[in-house]
């Protein structure tokens, strides 16, 4: 297959690609559109993937839709930054606000497996206090989840994804041992460690979702550093190689290249199925329950676009909060140059981190952040040099020659939820004829204070290891969250603790959009833990006849 060749769905014939063998297939159960399946899941990423697998393993009939293709990493993932942009959600979106988000590569994926197919694999737990940040820390909103319960689901997620992490993690309450050992820290990570030690902060090898020893049919990581454009070895424990094959084996059907455009609701106010576009036609799949897991832009877009006479403002939106409280995370960086060779692209990009400022509250702003070692690939790096540093022509060429001496630190910082940061529908339409989402984002003063603090701290760390030509990249943001927040009441949230919408009892949202706050760590492990919990809760509700 070539990058510019339009892909056709692969899972129409009762089989799904076996990601572990070239040209291989695994049998997959097919359901007809007319069959009223127990669950339709929209999106197969960090939320939809585990939920689909667990529901199928619990005996429910499940059909999971994804707008993206079902890739074969061994054959189709090239060591080529440009061609791998096929993994990103690059459909048109309108961005505005004081700090418009840059959509695409850095925050959304379109593939079976979702954004995890090209994510950076950093697998961190929330600080327990963040689940009650309003009560305990004075900002944001409390979650309706108890951190101790989440701790057990984090452990399950870490097991299922074979997270490779240190034998003891320096921050937060005790956690069970990571299933695999941490990876060897590369030179870029060791410089982070040296800087942190010089500042008197603890550091740690980063818990990562890529295996440091064989796991099933996954080989151990080969440290070539192509993780953020898809891993061609299957060392990366993305949804595509973990929960998705599990889901298929347990009887779920995965429909690739199937874009859901609208959720149907009947006169009694219950969801009855979904309209989806696949292989050039619109179809309708009947379902007893519908779960939306399209991530923080597509989830509210779908809910808003499914408005009916009965729900004129969109589904699950009696609170008016669908699409609101969109959050991203600050992803600013400090870059510099070392005398010695670093070769920062060797290995996963973030092999070491410090969570110091997630756990130290002696600062004059709300929220926390961590920072990590960096290893951008050449094209990405050149775009930093042209963007943040304004280099062109000869100057850019000369700077690129220093690639192997470059080092950098990047933060993942907590941005506060704000009512006016939101997703709405625009007047324009996309290739499916669906209204294009408008994404409005502005940083709060607190966000800016946090970013300034982070930049200064990271700069000090680089200075302490003797980096030269240091410069700051002030504009970058990454992970998304919010837009269908969970909460304690139908007035103040879209879904309850079980990810069930307050308004429509058989409509769930299970992805990063349910976050009331986003914390100072990367989100996927929390999303997956929530999905695992949701599956258990759905089973319990079904047993009690409350589904």
């Amino acid at each position: 297959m070539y990058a510019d060749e339009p892909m056709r769905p692969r899972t129409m014939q009762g089989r799904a690609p076996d990601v572990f063998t070239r040209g291989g297939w695994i049998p997959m159960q097919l359901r007809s559109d007319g069959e009223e399946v127990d669950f339709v899941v929209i999106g197969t990423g960090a939320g939809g993937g585990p939920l689909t697998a667990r529901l199928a393993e619990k005996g429910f009939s499940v059909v999971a839709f994804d707008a993206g293709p079902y890739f074969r990493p061994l054959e189709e993932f090239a060591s080529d930054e440009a061609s791998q942009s096929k993994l990103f959600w690059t459909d048109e979106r309108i961005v505005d606000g004081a700090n418009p988000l840059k959509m695409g590569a850095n925050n959304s994926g379109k593939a079976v497996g979702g954004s995890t197919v090209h994510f950076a694999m950093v697998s961190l737990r929330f600080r327990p206090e963040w689940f009650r940040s309003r009560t305990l820390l004075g900002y944001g909103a409390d979650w309706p989840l108890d951190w101790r319960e989440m701790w057990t689901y984090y452990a399950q997620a870490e097991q299922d994804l074979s997270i490779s992490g240190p034998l003891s993690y320096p921050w937060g309450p005790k956690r069970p041992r990571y299933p695999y050992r941490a990876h060897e820290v590369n030179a870029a990570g060791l410089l982070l460690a040296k800087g942190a030690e010089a500042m008197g902060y603890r550091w740690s090898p980063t818990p990562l979702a890529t295996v440091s020893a064989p796991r099933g049919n996954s080989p151990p990581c080969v440290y070539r550093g192509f993780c953020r454009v898809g891993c061609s070895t299957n060392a990366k424990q993305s949804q595509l190689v973990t929960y998705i094959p599990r889901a298929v084996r347990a009887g779920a059907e995965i429909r690739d290249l199937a874009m859901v455009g609208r959720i149907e609701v009947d006169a009694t106010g219950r969801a009855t199925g979904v309209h989806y576009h696949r292989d050039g036609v619109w179809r309708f799949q009947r379902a007893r329950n519908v779960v939306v897991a399209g991530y923080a832009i597509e989830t509210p877009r779908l809910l808003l676009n499914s408005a009916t006479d009965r729900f004129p403002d969109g589904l699950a939106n009696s609170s008016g909060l669908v699409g609101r409280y969109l959050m991203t995370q600050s992803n600013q960086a400090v870059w510099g140059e070392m005398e010695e060779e670093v070769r920062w692209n060797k290995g996963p990009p973030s092999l070491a981190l410090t969570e110091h400022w997630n756990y130290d509250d002696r600062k004059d702003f709300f929220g926390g952040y961590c920072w990590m070692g960096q290893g951008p690939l050449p094209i990405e790096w050149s775009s930093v040099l042209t963007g943040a540093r304004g280099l062109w022509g000869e100057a850019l060429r000369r700077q690129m020659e220093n690639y192997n001496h470059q080092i950098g630190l990047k933060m993942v910082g907590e941005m506060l939820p704000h009512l006016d940061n939101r997703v709405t529908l625009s007047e324009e339409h996309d290739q499916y004829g669906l209204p294009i989402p408008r994404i409005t984002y502005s940083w709060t003063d607190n966000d800016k204070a946090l970013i300034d603090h982070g930049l200064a701290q990271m700069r000090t760390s680089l200075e302490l290891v003797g980096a030269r030509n240091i410069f700051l990249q002030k504009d970058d943001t990454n992970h998304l969250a919010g837009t269908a927040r969970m909460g304690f009441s139908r007035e103040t949230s879209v879904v309850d603790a079980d990810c069930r919408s307050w308004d429509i009892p058989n409509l769930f949202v299970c992805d990063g959009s349910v976050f009331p706050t986003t914390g100072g760590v990367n989100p996927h492990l929390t999303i997956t833990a929530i999905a695992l919990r949701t599956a258990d809760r759905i089973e319990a509700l079904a047993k009690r006849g409350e589904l």
Partner: protein
Amino acid sequence: MDTRSPTGPVAVALAAAGGMTVLGMALSGAGLRRSGRRVAARANAVVGAADRRTAVTAARRLNRASGTLAASVLFDSAVEHYRGGFHNKAMYTPLVAATLSLLVSAHGHRDRGHDAELARDLVYAGAGLAGLLGTGFHVFNVGKKPGGFGWQNLFYSAPLGAPAALCLSGLLGWLSERVRDNAPDTAPLVLGIPAGRVVGAATAAGIIGTVAEAGLLHLRGQFHDPFMLLPVTVPPVAAGFCAAAAFGGAGRPRPLARWMLRASAVIGLSGSAFHAIGVARSMGGWRNWRQNLLDGPPLPAPPAFTGLALAGLAALSLLEDQPE
């Protein structure tokens, strides 16, 4: 569903290697009772005087033990130091020392004489020294990295236990010369202590050290395959029996100790086969051998157990022959 276990050819290969290993370990216990009785009979026949032939046989066995360890060190350090680009000239030392140790061990194996050879002694002493210095180097290297002697550096920095194998090769070789070099009609002594006891104690200690090394690296690999538990379960038992023999009564058969040592020897050999499967499980498998031999599990490392088991068996022979 379990997605942790491999499928396809890898699963078949693992099952085959596992089956062969278990069979080999079981078979290595066969015939021990009979040979035990024979030993007892012979010991009774020569009450009071050690058999000189036993000493030479034991010495040659120790040469083989030393040689096996040297070979393991030679190939292991060649691969690992090549991987490290020989960035320090001293990284050639183990290659030279292990090669020499291997050569004189072969020489000793063919030598049926009763006298120590100065050349062999010098080489063995040199290997022991090189091993000590290497350990020092590795300790120093680990200590200066961020994180110091934390797990991370124990897992990935210069392995502390690897040069110790060279030390053991030198030590066992040196002991072989002492065992060989004894006056007629006397029990072989090392520094005034019965040789069987010294060799037995040294072997037990060596096995424990090697178990620690294997345990550390298999922990790094999360014991992802159940057979990875073998080298940390059977050899320690063998070491225990070996130590019990070294410090216990002499002149009697120890079939269980023999069995466990032989089983450890089997594990050392099958370990290389398992590691070869491990190489196959890396990206690209054996087709990509130039990378995977470096990054995969080390093929030459496990036979260190075989070498030590040979030394343990030599110790048992000496002890069985030693008058009470």
